C-alpha cells in the first residue's frame, strides 16, 4: 500500500495549490527544477522548465493539452544528463514512451522524480487554445471530464480519439502521482508511489492521510469504458484497412511531410532513412517508374514510409495520438498505428512502458524461439 496525502484545494485554487507543492520541492531542494505545463504568452500551454519559484504562477499541470510529448522533451533534458535532480510532470502515455526511450539509451530517469498525473484526455492543440481564450479552466475540465469524454455537449470539442481509447488513465512506474480520479471535486490526492516518492514526502514534511475511498472503482470504470471503445476501433480498423489498397486509401492525402514521425515519441532513428539520399532519387528513376506503371503519384513512396515506420516502432507504440495531432491532412494515424501495434506487440507479448526490465522485441533474439517462422527443424 502506498501512502496518500490530500492536497488542499480551495475554490478556484487548483493551480495555486499545485504551485505551492512544487515551490516547496524547489525550496527544500528535493529537486533543482520542475518541468511542468504552464501558460505561455500570449496563448497556449507548454511544458516549462522552472527553477525559480516565481515562475510557478503560470503553471497548469492538468491543462488538457499535450503540444509535444513530454517523453521527447525529457530525452532532450537527459540524453546528456544535467546531473541535477529534476521533477517532471507527465501523463501515462508520456511516461510509457519515456521508458522506451530509456531502453533505447536516448533518455535517462536517474536524476528524475517522475510525477504522473491522472489523465482524462487532452484536446487537440488548436481546440485547446480556443477553449483557453474563452476562459475555460482545467478545474472545469476535470469536473466535466468525469465521463471520460471531456465535452458536455455535442458542439463542444471532444478530447483526442487516442485518449478516448486509452486504457491507461493512471500512470504506472512513477514516483509520485497526482490523483483526481475517484476524488471529490476540489480534491487532489498525492500518492507517494516509489521509495524516491516517499523520500520526497518526508523531505517536504507532508503527512500521510487516508486514501480516497472511491478511487479504485472509479479508475476501473474509466478503464472499462475506454477498453470497450478501443476494441471497437481496433475491430473497425482491422476490417476497414485489410488490404494495401485500403491502406493507400486510408492514407490518402499524405504529403510525405513526416510530421507524424517527428511528433512520435518512440520513433527512435536519429536520422530517418526517408530524409536521406536513399530516397533522393535521380530524375530518370521517377520517369522509369512512371514508364512501368503508366503514371506515378508524387510525392512517391508514402505507403512505403508508413509501412516502414510500422516495422520500426509499432512494437513500441504507446497510443499517445501525437501522430494524428501532427498530421496537417487529418489522417487518423494513431488509430491505425495502435491497431497494427496490437498485433505486433501481441506477437512478442510486449507492452511498451510496462517495465524497464523487459527488453524491446527487436533488441533481443534467442536461438530457441519462433521456430514457426521457418517451420524447419534440423
Amino acid at each position, binding site marked *: 500500500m502506498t501512502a496518500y496525502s490530500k492536497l488542499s484545494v480551495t475554490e478556484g485554487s487548483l493551480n495555486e495549490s499545485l504551485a505551492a507543492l512544487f515551490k516547496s520541492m524547489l525550496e527544500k531542494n528535493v529537486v533543482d527544477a520542475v518541468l511542468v505545463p504552464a501558460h505561455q504568452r500570449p496563448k497556449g500551454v507548454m511544458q516549462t522548465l522552472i527553477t525559480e519559484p516565481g515562475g510557478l504562477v503560470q503553471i497548469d499541470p492538468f491543462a488538457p493539452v499535450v503540444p509535444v510529448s513530454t517523453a521527447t522533451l525529457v530525452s532532450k533534458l537527459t540524453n546528456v544528463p544535467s546531473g541535477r535532480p529534476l521533477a517532471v510532470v507527465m501523463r501515462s502515455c508520456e511516461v510509457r514512451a519515456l521508458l522506451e526511450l530509456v531502453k533505447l539509451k536516448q533518455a535517462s530517469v536517474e536524476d528524475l522524480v517522475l510525477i504522473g498525473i491522472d489523465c482524462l484526455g487532452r484536446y487537440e492543440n488548436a481546440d485547446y487554445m480556443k477553449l483557453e481564450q474563452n476562459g475555460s479552466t482545467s478545474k472545469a475540465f476535470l469536473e466535466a471530464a468525469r465521463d471520460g469524454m471531456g465535452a458536455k455537449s455535442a458542439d463542444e470539442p471532444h478530447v483526442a480519439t487516442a485518449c478516448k481509447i486509452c486504457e491507461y488513465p493512471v500512470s504506472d512506474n512513477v514516483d509520485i502521482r497526482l490523483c483526481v480520479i475517484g476524488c471529490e471535486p476540489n480534491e487532489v490526492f498525492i500518492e507517494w508511489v516509489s521509495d524516491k516518492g516517499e523520500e520526497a514526502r518526508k523531505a517536504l514534511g507532508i503527512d500521510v492521510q487516508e486514501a480516497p475511498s472511491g478511487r479504485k472503482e472509479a479508475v476501473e470504470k474509466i478503464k472499462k469504458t475506454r477498453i470497450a471503445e478501443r476494441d471497437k476501433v481496433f475491430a473497425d480498423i482491422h476490417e476497414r484497412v485489410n488490404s494495401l489498397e485500403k491502406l493507400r486509401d486510408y492514407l490518402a492525402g499524405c504529403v510525405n511531410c513526416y510530421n507524424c514521425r517527428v511528433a512520435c515519441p518512440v520513433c527512435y532513428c536519429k536520422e530517418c532513412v526517408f530524409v536521406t539520399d536513399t530516397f533522393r532519387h535521380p530524375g530518370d528513376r521517377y520517369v522509369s517508374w512512371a514508364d512501368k506503371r503508366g503514371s506515378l*503519384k508524387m510525392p512517391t513512396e508514402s505507403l512505403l514510409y508508413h509501412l516502414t515506420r510500422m516495422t520500426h516502432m509499432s512494437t513500441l507504440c504507446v497510443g499517445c495520438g501525437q501522430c494524428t495531432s501532427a498530421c496537417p491532412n487529418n489522417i487518423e494515424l494513431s488509430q491505425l498505428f495502435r491497431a497494427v501495434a496490437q498485433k505486433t506487440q501481441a506477437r512478442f507479448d510486449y507492452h511498451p512502458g510496462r517495465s524497464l526490465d523487459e527488453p524491446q522485441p527487436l533488441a533481443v533474439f534467442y536461438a530457441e524461439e519462433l521456430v514457426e517462422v*521457418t517451420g524447419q527443424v534440423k
Partner: protein
Amino acid sequence: MNDTFEPTIVAFLCNWCTFTAADLAGTSRLSYPQNVKIVRMMCSGMVDPVYVLKAFLEGADGVYVGGCWPGDCHYINGNLKARRRAALLTEILKQFGIEEDRFWLRWVAASDGIMFQEHSKEMTEKLRALGPSPLSVDRTIA
C-alpha cells in the same frame, strides 16, 4: 488464369549459404523456376524490412529470404535477428492482406542445392494457387 500465371519471387539470399546453394543448384543442373529473382546479401540479417516492403510494393508476388541455419551464421546471429524481423513483418503484412505464404524465411545450407530448388518450386506452386499479388495488378498502389 492460374495455369498461365507465373509469379515473380524476389529472393534475398545470404552469400554464405542459400546463395551458394542456389549457385550449386545451377551448376548441378537442378532446374528451379525462372521467376526467382535473386538478390545476393552478405547475411540474412542484412535484409532490412524496407527491402521486403519495397519488393512487395514494386509488385513482387512473393519474397523469399534465405539464411544459414541457426548456429551457422557467419556473423553469429544475423539469422536470429532476421527471424525476429520476419515474425514482425508477417504480422504487419498479414493485416494488409499479404498472406503468410507470400513471405518466406528459410534456412538452407550451402551444400543443399536440392533444398533451395525444392523451396523455389514449392513457393511458386503456392503463389500460383494464391494468384497474383494485388499490387502487381494495380500498379497505382504505391
